[in-house]
């Protein structure tokens, strides 16, 4: 490192293009190291699991990567994994969409009224504290054991996260901006459209990242309560037959869905942020 810098100093200063290429090269190399380390860690975990399985613990308790892989191939082959994944995704997305819509709308409406926020805040806090899983049996009574029950459970989880983020965000909007709009003669609606909605967008994305995994939990827990399909059902069903590999397959499938969705939300968030002028890591123009 030091050597490189000394060499650079004795030579003529590089032109902008060379400097840019050098910075890009170093960034790529660093990135490659990061990924290499990640792969090594993953490989170490898998190898340890494979090697210890059947030695330290019985294979039917621990399963092993090879057995999990076999089960994946089997279930992909006969379509069992895909169909159950589809069921869980449907429940999750319906709950996620409804929960987001209701939570965002309510958060905005209540947040815009200081009086309503003050009146309702103890109720909101109380509802937030309720372990929402406990409502599962109630939903079985209300909606039966079909899609509606699981989506409602997923949506209920989501609603609170989105609501809470937007609601508290609205109350933290810079009042000097609002004052500035007023001096310009802006109407109430113009203030909401010009300040509150754009601000709400960034809180929305932050809450969506939290909300999606929670929606998945809602759906799978709903399947635990009562179901004949879905990844939650796959897991309980496999466990009932002492098929730990099957349980692992369900868990890994849910994890992959959550990670992919998180990446997707981050991607959209970046696009939106670029439109909103929040460019990360950009250089200042003086």
């Amino acid at each position, binding site marked *: 490192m030091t050597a490189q810098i000394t060499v650079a100093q004795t030579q003529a200063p590089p032109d902008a293009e060379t400097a840019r290429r050098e910075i890009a090269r170093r960034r790529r190399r660093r990135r490659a190291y990061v990924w290499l380390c990640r792969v090594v860690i993953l490989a170490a975990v898998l190898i340890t699991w494979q090697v210890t399985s059947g030695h330290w613990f019985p294979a039917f308790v621990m399963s092993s990567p090879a057995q999990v892989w076999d089960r994946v191939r089997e279930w992909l082959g006969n379509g069992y994994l895909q169909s159950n994944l589809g069921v869980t995704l449907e429940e999750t997305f319906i709950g996620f969409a409804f929960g987001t819509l209701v939570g965002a709308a309510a958060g905005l409406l209540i947040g815009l009224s200081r009086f309503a926020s003050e009146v309702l805040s103890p109720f909101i806090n109380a509802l937030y504290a309720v372990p929402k899983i406990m409502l599962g049996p109630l939903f079985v009574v209300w909606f039966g054991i079909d899609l509606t029950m699981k989506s409602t459970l997923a949506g209920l989880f989501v609603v609170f996260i989105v609501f809470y983020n937007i609601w508290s965000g609205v109350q933290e909007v*810079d009042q*000097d*901006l609002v004052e*500035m*709009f*007023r*001096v*310009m*003669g*802006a109407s109430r609606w*113009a203030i909401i459209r*010009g*300040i509150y909605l*754009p601000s709400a967008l960034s809180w929305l994305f932050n809450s969506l990242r939290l909300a999606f995994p929670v929606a998945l939990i809602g759906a799978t827990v709903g399947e635990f309560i009562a179901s004949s399909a879905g990844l939650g059902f796959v897991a309980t069903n496999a466990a009932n037959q002492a098929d730990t590999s099957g349980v692992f397959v369900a868990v890994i499938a849910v994890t992959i869905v959550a990670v992919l969705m998180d990446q997707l939300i981050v991607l959209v968030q970046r696009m939106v942020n670029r*439109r*909103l*002028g*929040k*460019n990360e890591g*950009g250089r*200042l*123009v*003086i």
Partner: protein
Amino acid sequence: MTQATRMTQRAERRREKSGGEPAAPGPVLDLRSVSVRYLTSSGLNTAVTEVTATVEPGEFVSVVGPSGCGKSTLLHVAAGLIRPSAGQVTYLGQEWTGLHPDVGYVTQKDTLLPWRTVADNIALPLQLKGMRKAERRAIAADMAASLGLEDYLKHFPNQLSGGMRQRVQLGRTLVIRPKLLLMDEPFGALDAYLRLRMQELLLSILREHPVSTVFVTHDLGEAITLSDRVLALSGSPGQLVLDCAIQTSAERGDPMAVRSTPEFSDYQSRLWDAISAPGGQK
């Protein structure tokens, strides 16, 4: 040509330029024995008391005074944001009815919308008035050009320096052609060099877009450099202690030249004496 006639002529020119309307008879803003009292948890608090002052069309008036003498309160009264507890406020010949229309307000604080580009920030008040996109874009681009921001139309505020952001705020304020421009320590957060540059820019932009201005500052030099007239407030509650017309032998568009005239230091010591007179600041 004497300084006095030069000054009158300049005011005349501004009046003519400010949109072909007939010059409003009388002052833009007329404050008579204005007092403002606040009710606070520690009791009744008087911010300013018995202030009488006017702002004539095209005039640049600064308000100076130590912190807490009610300068900003007076500016809120001028904007029609608060109604005085006693006294009379007349804006463009009309008594107080609420927020004054066609008032531009600039503060030290950055109130640009971070999610809007420079062009869209400048065009904001036009948009709020319902102007069509193409039209307001064109006007905003013109305004940006006269502020030296023509290359930054598509930049976002967080990509700009403090001085540039303040220029965008100024552009946003002037784009509606206000009848009264109110500025509350607009350059207070800038360093000394940038502040002089901004003063220069402000004077040149006001030649292009003439408007009656009230400028609050605690920097006496800044007030003398910029103004036709300086009002000095002092004490708590704030009282008007000096109303002083400024005339120097230097070209006023050049802050450094004004600062090097002998009159400049005379005014400075007069204002200093006024605001630090006994009975004023404790």
